């Protein structure tokens, strides 16, 4: 993700009032939405750094856009989902390139946190693996709902009809619980 450091190009409207009102809306949106966007991406990717990058880049793109979309929260998620997808593809290519070197294994596995409670670590592992068993859309919908997004915002983010969000969430919740219980046993 490369940014061009040209502040102001996103709001280059000749109409100063429009620009000022966009700036205010953008600031409010950032204040209200950065944390939830980051948290969603963090849970989705398991990579806080990538989540922070993608969340910031999504806001930069919103700023460059120069006007607020109808559903800003959903718009930001849709952009960030694409950024994460592209980044994952890039990293996969990079790992492939590096693995061509003999005697070299891909690195980057996070170090186990020695202080982490074993049960908690096992639960986290099971949660991550259970999520991995869901389809991408179901996983995204479940994480968005539990990240505080509304059905309308989820629909906008994932390109779903709002009326089908409930069905998606019921299915995703069941699949997640079943996978988690199989991996770890029933939750306490």
């Amino acid at each position: 993700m490369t940014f061009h450091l040209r502040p102001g190009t996103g709001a280059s409207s000749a109409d100063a009032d429009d620009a000022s009102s966009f700036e205010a809306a953008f600031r409010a949106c950032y204040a209200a939405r950065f944390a939830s966007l980051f948290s969603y991406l963090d849970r989705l990717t398991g990579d806080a750094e990538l989540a922070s990058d993608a969340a910031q880049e999504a806001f930069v793109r919103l700023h460059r856009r120069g006007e607020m979309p109808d559903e800003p929260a959903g718009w930001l998620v849709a952009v960030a989902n694409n950024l994460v997808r592209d980044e994952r593809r890039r990293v996969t290519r990079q790992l492939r390139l590096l693995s061509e070197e003999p005697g070299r294994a891909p690195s980057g596995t996070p170090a186990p946190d020695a202080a982490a409670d074993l049960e908690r670590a096992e639960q986290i592992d099971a949660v991550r693996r259970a999520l991995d068993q869901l389809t991408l859309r179901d996983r995204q919908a479940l994480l968005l709902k539990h990240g505080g997004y509304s059905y309308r915002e989820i629909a906008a983010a994932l390109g779903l009809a709002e009326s089908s969000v409930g069905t998606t969430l019921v299915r995703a919740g069941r699949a997640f619980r079943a996978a988690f219980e199989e991996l770890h046993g029933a939750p306490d």
Partner: protein
Amino acid sequence: MHPTDEALLALTHGELERAAAEVVRAHCAGCASCAARAAAARTEDGEIGRLLGLLDHPVPRLPVPAGRGAARRGRSAALAASLALLVAGAAAAAVPGTSLNRWLRSRLDGAPPTAPRTAPPAPTPVPSGPAQAASGVELRTSRSLVIAFAAPEPDGVMAATRTDRADAAFRAYGGAVAYQVGNGRISVNNRQPARRYTLEVPAELTDLTVTVAGRVVFHSTARPMPADSAVAIPLSADPGR
């Protein structure tokens, strides 16, 4: 008619219209089976929320509109690592103080747009010390690091040294260089070569790879980095030759 699972979950989520919610509540009040289903939906949804919460990392500290100065001083290492910078024209514009994050903060703090810096023309490569560093990025990494130069530089050299700092610090001296940072990787778009670069890495870094135009020109397992001296890595590799 009994409410669907979707309706019970939507009730839990507060997503039913008021009238529809009243209908479902009224039904549950008179139907023990559906009351139990509704309670189970709430419990299960809460349990899923608790489990997903186990995955959370702290939200990075970010701009506080009321505290511009404090926010700037409080830049977190994670954010510093995640910033992608572009230095166009004048490499001086890429010192850490002009990161995207600070730009965003300036926007969010309500400050007027920061004009792109009109720094003096970028100095041509100066073979002197870090005091003349023109641009740089830092990346929090402890294990592995990839530095990927987009293009070869026939007389370009990167000097890599181990330090006791926790971040990797990459600097270019002159030229106009764009950086892309993240996931243990610094991509360097050196279309206007700086020709001289330095890299400082944490002492515990086990794995440093340098590529030029996609070709590996240095790997620390093949050529170890001593603790007490710099390793000069030529950037002249040109796959086309």
